[in-house]
């Protein structure tokens, strides 16, 4: 599995990509693989406040539900519409088209940079 170098990663298997004040959040390739066939993605409405470390949505397979945790605090700008019609995209392209939400961040960017790098994350999932 390859993990984009420009992303940062959490222990809960989310990735975050920072672009100025905006962050894009998704789940990792490792996470989608562990979940199996994803059948439904529950995401917040634009305008919702999310808090770092708190759950903001969930991903469902046929027989399991997993919460997704916000890697940063901020306000949701956009939820990925693609996933409401085609949840299977999250299995196919978790690091790309199947991002989950875009956030206008309230966290200190330094906090985000303190998250795991691609290399660290790869070691982390290797060890898990």
């Amino acid at each position, binding site marked *: 599995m390859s993990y984009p170098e420009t992303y940062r990663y959490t222990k809960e298997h989310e990735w975050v990509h920072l672009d100025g004040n905006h962050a894009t959040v998704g789940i990792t390739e490792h996470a989608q693989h562990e979940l199996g066939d994803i059948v439904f993605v529950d995401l917040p409405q634009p305008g919702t406040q999310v808090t770092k470390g708190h759950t903001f949505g969930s991903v469902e397979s*046929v027989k399991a539900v997993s919460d997704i945790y916000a890697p940063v605090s901020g306000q949701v700008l956009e939820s990925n519409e693609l996933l409401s019609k085609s949840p299977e995209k999250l299995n196919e392209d978790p690091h790309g088209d199947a991002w989950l939400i875009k956030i206008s961040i309230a966290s200190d960017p330094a906090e985000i940079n303190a998250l795991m790098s691609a290399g660290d994350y790869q070691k982390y999932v290797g060890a898990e």
Partner: protein
Amino acid sequence: MINKVSKHIVQNEPLIFERTSPGKRGYQLPELDVPPVDPVQALGAKNVRSEIEDFPEVSEFEVLRHFSRLSTWNYAIDLGLYPLGSCTMKYNPRVNEVVARTEGLAWAHPYQPEHLSQGAMQVIAALEHALGEITGMDAVTLQPAAGAHGEFTGILMIRALLESRGGARSKILVPDSAHGTNPATAMMVGYSVENIKSNDRGVVDLEVLARAVTDDVAALMITNPNTVGVFEENIRKICGILHDKGALVYMDGANMNALVGVARPGDFGVDVMHLNLHKTFSTPHGGGGPGAGAVAVAQVLTPFLPGPRLRRAANGWTWNYDCPQSIGRVRAFYGNFGVLIRALAYILAHGGNGLRQATLDALLNANYLRTLLEPHYQIAYEAPSMHECVFSDDRQAKKGVRTGDIAKRLIDYGFHPYTVSFPLIVRGALMIEPTETESKLELDQFAGAMISIAKEVEDNPELVLKAPHSTRTPRVDEVTAARKPVVRWRPAAAASQAAD
């Protein structure tokens, strides 16, 4: 070699909507003996519907054939062992079906005068009494419609009692081996849930529990025997720990069929419990209901029972609606009366000694299977089993075969699967409950099938992974069903439109 089953012809059958032809009918109403009323005049044009679009139109015989054919696609306890752990699939005596249809009982209206309902009220009184005796508890309500509904009723009563003592408290403790209904119920009564980790013997750890029982704990919800089929031997101490802190003990009675006549929750300190009449007392499951969830309580909780309560008056039984401390109604009327009749008939047929013997027979069957299967499957816990035994798929997983695959392969051998992947504390659980009504012949065939599958896992895992091979319907695509839910039929044209 599969000797329990062989192939036979199964009829195909379309959906009833696809069988329909305009104008066909399967009914005949009596001639109207009053002047016909024009619906438009009586109700107003905008209140009258044109027609029920796409509703079926078939003949009487087609109705019978349609449902008879569908029925042949089901497995059932009538056809063979149904070893679903925790579900207690036992023989449903047919006399119970007959008595539940007795004219004066089946057609009793819940609001008909009390003096013309004495028979129905006696059924309720007799069953309340019998269940009180069996559980050793002080009072019983038969109002809840199912086990989960009973849990809800019981936790509401606990909350009401604690409130009357000054505070509802905030938390319910639930062991990690519990049924999912327990935490869901606690939430519906406004409690948060704290999970209690089981120890390596599969039972509640007294030290862990003692630490968790703080002043804000309202109750512990405990299943006994627990979901791994093991008796919580410290149950008295467990109850003591809760009671010392002013908290209560709720017992999930899903497994009461292991205790009837052998131990009584009321005697060992339980404050409130439910009984699944459709499990322990043999009322038929009917493909998922109806059930009935009687709730038995200790004296201290009786003021909070749902109303109305049955009361003996000078001239017979009467419903008492004056229950000032009651939690209120949990459903309309008095309970799933038709199910109560069947449960009472079961108790009458057995008598006290017969009920105890049924328990011992259930234990015998479960332990017999355990002994036969232990050389081939990893038992989850060494502690003695009661009415069910739980294995893990550890040995088979090494070959890439999981509990769900073994379950599917069992179907080819002519058996319904056991309970798969529950309880969650056992990795890859196989939960097997034979019940007392199975003969040695059926048990031996089942054990033979399980042992044969264990061998197949070694020799030819693919065979197991792709099972079942012999059913009318092979494995179904549950992923697409969940991704693109289609939960009703639509005519072809409308269906293709909906898909756009």
